[in-house]
């Protein structure tokens, strides 16, 4: 019974990984016409990936989803808007501020700003710029989850907010310095990590199924969308504030 369950999970994970293996093998053998280097390493790595993915999905069902929904329900039952919104903001801010991908992007962005002679090349000003960028992204993700939670509670339709956000992004693109635009657009994508996404999704769905008159499908989703839109606006805003 348990072995068949484990076997099924492993098989699922293998299916998830299969496209990557096929693509790499195709390009390596057919296009670049080179043998696959270090087959042993590659196979061992693929094995780890499959095992890891099965364990992760099992953990999602057991831990991450239930805790997210339990928190949403407990906070909704407590009935305090202040604490619910504080939790939302803290979740967004704290999971983003130490995100390694974000730290990497911010220091890269500082290099670019320095090359574009927007900031001087001393180490202190580079560090300051990267830190400011990181803080504005983390703050914007916190605010995004907060707005998303407010939307679920009040039942605002999501498309007005998102389309409004798009218009702001486009308007800011016109006036923002060009060195920051590419980074701003990418910042939206890198902020949401693999552990945050399931937790935030469970939080939204849990809240929408607790509040009367909200549908989990219509209102529960959408938090991630805010978390990838708002950082764009804030990063361009930071650019304007510093250079404008």
């Amino acid at each position: 019974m348990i072995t068949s369950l484990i076997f099924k999970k492993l098989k699922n994970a293998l299916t998830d990984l299969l496209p990557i293996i096929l693509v790499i093998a195709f390009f390596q053998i057919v296009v670049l016409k080179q043998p696959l280097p270090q087959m042993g390493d590659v196979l061992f790595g693929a094995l780890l990936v499959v095992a890891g993915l099965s364990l992760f999905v099992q953990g999602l069902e057991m831990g991450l989803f239930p805790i997210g929904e339990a928190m949403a329900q407990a906070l909704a039952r407590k009935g305090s808007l202040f604490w619910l919104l504080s939790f939302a903001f803290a979740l967004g801010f704290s999971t983003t501020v130490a995100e390694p991908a974000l730290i990497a992007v911010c220091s890269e962005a500082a290099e670019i700003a320095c090359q574009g002679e927007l900031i001087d090349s001393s180490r202190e000003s580079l560090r300051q710029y990267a830190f400011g960028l990181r803080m504005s992204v983390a703050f914007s993700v916190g605010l995004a989850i907060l707005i998303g939670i407010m939307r679920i509670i009040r039942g605002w339709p999501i498309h007005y907010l998102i389309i409004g956000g798009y218009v702001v992004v486009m308007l800011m693109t016109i006036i923002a310095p060009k060195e920051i635009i590419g980074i701003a657009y990418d910042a939206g994508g890198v902020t949401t990590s693999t552990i945050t996404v399931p937790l935030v999704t469970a939080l939204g769905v849990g809240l929408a199924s607790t509040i009367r008159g909200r549908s989990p499908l219509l209102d529960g989703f959408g938090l991630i969308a805010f978390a990838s839109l708002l950082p764009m606006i804030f990063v361009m805003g930071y650019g304007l504030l510093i250079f404008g």
Partner: protein
Amino acid sequence: MEFIHDFSAILVATCRDVLPIILLITIFQTLVLRQSIPHLRRVIVGGVYVVIGLALFLAGLEKALFPLGKIMATQLSDPAFLYGTDKIVLQADWKAYGWIYLFAGMVGFATTIAEPSLIAVAYKANEVSAGTINQWGLRITVAIGVALGISLGTFRIVSGTPLYLYILVGYLIVIVQTIFAPKSIIPLAYDSGGVTTSTVTVPLVAALGLGLSATVPGRNPALDGFGLIAFASLFPIITVMGYAQYMHWMTQRKLKIMEKRNAL
């Protein structure tokens, strides 16, 4: 031995990622909610699974796929491979980069299928919609979106056209689709833009973008290397809404045909 060292470094990094979440939940449980978590033991075991699973997953990628993928991205964008060794190229010809567009698209598709956060969202969407949203259907639709987006993104780097034009057109398409798409899919479609770009996709795609902008004549990695992630988070929104529209249209048509038959 070296592997154990690498793995423990990744495990520590993953634990550090989870730390703020654990702190936050503990603080709220003890100070604000003042009640115990239901099935606490199960949740903790699940949390441990998530951390170890993710660390194994990342270690495996570092070991097997990332080095290979990154080498291939640079090899494919090498002018010697694209134009032949005896030519000196001063001006990039966008037609010579066919393999790059194909590679970008296929890597985008393949990495998105393996993306753990997309698996999580698809699982939840299936559960919430009582099975009407198919997990694989959603994942494949999103992956096609990422593939189109990254392909177009590499074309942009090669041709050197401005990023904001593409994003502007993409936004306009999203707005028009939002008006016509079935209401129930819209929040999920917007979300699918953000979830596609995490652990698997970002490192490979970033390597491709930076490698390409460094080797294409006349491109500056600092200015042109960015933007691929933006493409990868915009296009899934379009494909997910498009797929929902198509399904909606098909059911409508079927209903009409049935009605006609009944009338006869």
